[in-house]
């Protein structure tokens, strides 16, 4: 965790001094960095710029970053349209529920994996890891029928349970790893004093696992916020659609309202962007730990 968290420790270390003989190298490096930034960030800048344009100016020739028609109209249109606001509401409800529920269920499972030896532990562990590789498209066809049978088709609950299946394995693996770094003596001490394992978990382990919980929570939220395939297939009515599907629906209309699509995209990435800016450390920690330790 310490190693993983270092990239974000921006302000922690003093900047290193560079001897003058490196100036040439440094200029070349910064040039390369700027070139790389053009590749990664210019498309995003263009998205932002297009969201402020009039739709008639989107494909003007030659293209300009800021056009005479600069306005917030596209944003106003989206934020005053109850149908589109509903997409956002749905996305928030689903993503937040998935995050909370996944954390609760994953913490319980991780506690068992981290603190107990039991029959079948290895097998269950392998199942949890392997399940992550099951292609969504394989599950999609039976899910359609299953959700209808369980009366969960076109409901929040259906989407929430579905996303939990995708977020849980990762969350369990991450939290198990996190609990494993905490000394067993901590919870054993409470148990000796007569408390059960639940008390040890909630009173001792949870409070000191906040960084791990945040990492997992952020990652879980992102997966749920971004999911497309199941949101497309398991919901039918407009009032159950999520933001990614909302963007696709905008695209499906007869005339492309590019400025509105871009504005909706910007609005759609704001939660993830904010999570990233506030929790950069945890975010990167979670991302890398998942890949490195899985």
């Amino acid at each position, binding site marked *: 965790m310490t*190693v993983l968290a270092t*990239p974000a420790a*921006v302000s922690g*270390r*003093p900047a*290193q001094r560079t001897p003058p003989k*490196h100036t040439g*190298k440094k200029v070349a*490096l910064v040039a390369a*960095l700027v070139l*790389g930034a053009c*590749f*990664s960030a210019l*498309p*995003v800048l263009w*998205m932002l710029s297009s969201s402020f344009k009039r739709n008639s100016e989107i*494909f003007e020739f030659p*293209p300009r970053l800021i056009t005479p028609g600069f306005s917030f109209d596209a944003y106003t249109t989206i934020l005053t349209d109850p149908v589109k606001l509903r997409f956002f509401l749905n996305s928030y409800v689903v993503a937040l529920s998935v995050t909370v529920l996944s954390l*609760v269920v994953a913490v*319980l*499972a991780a*506690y*068992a994996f981290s*603190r*107990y030896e*039991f029959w079948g532990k290895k097998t*269950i562990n*392998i199942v949890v890891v392997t*399940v992550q*590789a*099951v*292609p*969504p*498209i*394989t*599950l*999609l*066809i*039976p899910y*359609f029928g*299953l959700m209808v049978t369980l009366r969960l088709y076109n409901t929040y609950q259906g989407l929430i349970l579905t996303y939990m*299946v995708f977020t*849980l394995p990762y969350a369990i693996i991450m939290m198990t790893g996190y609990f494993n770094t905490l000394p067993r003596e901590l919870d054993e001490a409470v148990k000796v004093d007569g408390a*059960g394992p639940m008390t040890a978990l909630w009173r001792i382990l949870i409070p000191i696992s906040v960084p791990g919980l945040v990492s997992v929570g952020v990652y879980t939220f992102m997966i749920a916020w971004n999911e*497309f*395939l199941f949101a497309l297939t398991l919901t039918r009515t407009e009032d159950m659609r999520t933001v*990614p599907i909302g*963007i*696709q629906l*905008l695209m499906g209309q007869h005339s492309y309202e590019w400025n509105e699509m871009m504005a909706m*995209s910007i609005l*759609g*990435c704001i939660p*993830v*962007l904010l999570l*990233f800016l506030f929790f*950069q450390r945890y975010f990167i920690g979670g991302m*890398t730990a998942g890949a*490195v330790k*899985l």
Partner: protein
Amino acid sequence: MSQTTRPPRDALAVRPPAPARDVGARARSISRLKRRLTPYGFLTPTGVLLVILMITPIVMVVTYSLLDGVITNQNPAFVGFDNYVEVLTNPVFFTAVRNTLVFTISSVVVHFAIGLGFALMLNSPLLGNRTKGLFRVLYILPWLFTVAIVAVLWRLLLNPNGVVNYLLGAFGVTDGQTEWLASTSTALAAVTFINIWSGYPFFMISLLAGLQGIPRELYEAARVDGAGAWSQFLHVTIPQLRPIIISMALLDFIWTTQQFALIWMTTGGGPITSTEMLSTFTYKLAFTRYDFSLASASAVLVLLMSMVLAFFYVRHQKSRD
């Protein structure tokens, strides 16, 4: 758990006093049983969810693939492996396999190359921490957008009248008229490019963390042995990053073969079948042709391929422990 069933603090070491022997033994065996069952209690929610929404659907899809006319037909007939034969003799299936491989292998290789390049730059001792922080955020940007947004954005950029064509035309690279996503000769390259753009940060961040975890002494030792920058890179950096690279490559490979939304929202698998992937091929069988039996057979084949990859992944992870 109540006070009475709790074993004495030193239950393992000390014999209980003789008169209370029976009671003590019973209490201990109950408590042992409880302790044995506790982990399963903690795993119950996960277990229920995975059995209902993971194991059951997999059993269902395998069953579907052996029947004819499932979902649409009241009494589907058992047809054995007929559906598999039909999928495996469909030339579009093989086009989809080929496209998926081209798309995935190119994506993974370039993700790795760009990710490593950017990570090395961001890790350079020549840069101040503020500069590093700024560029790290800029480089992560593409990863913060959901695939749906990435797809719309690149449809705007790659539009025949869009800014990419304008720039390429202005610099004389092309005639500025290319229909990137609508022409059979460029569509696969275009969606691969989009996927590369949106996916490299994941590689980059892990490699960056890996780079920062390499002990400085290794480089110093290499320098003492007279190794130059390139030799240090080959003999210290790469071997040290190897486990991360393999994990990332396998994960990326598994995920990229499953990519659906990006293809669906940019080309829909077209034009004709030039960007048809296994995911879009299967999806169309089910939800465009409503042939859920064939789609299930195709989905099971996709599952088998993924499980082969997962096997290597799990084995690799185990060998690292």
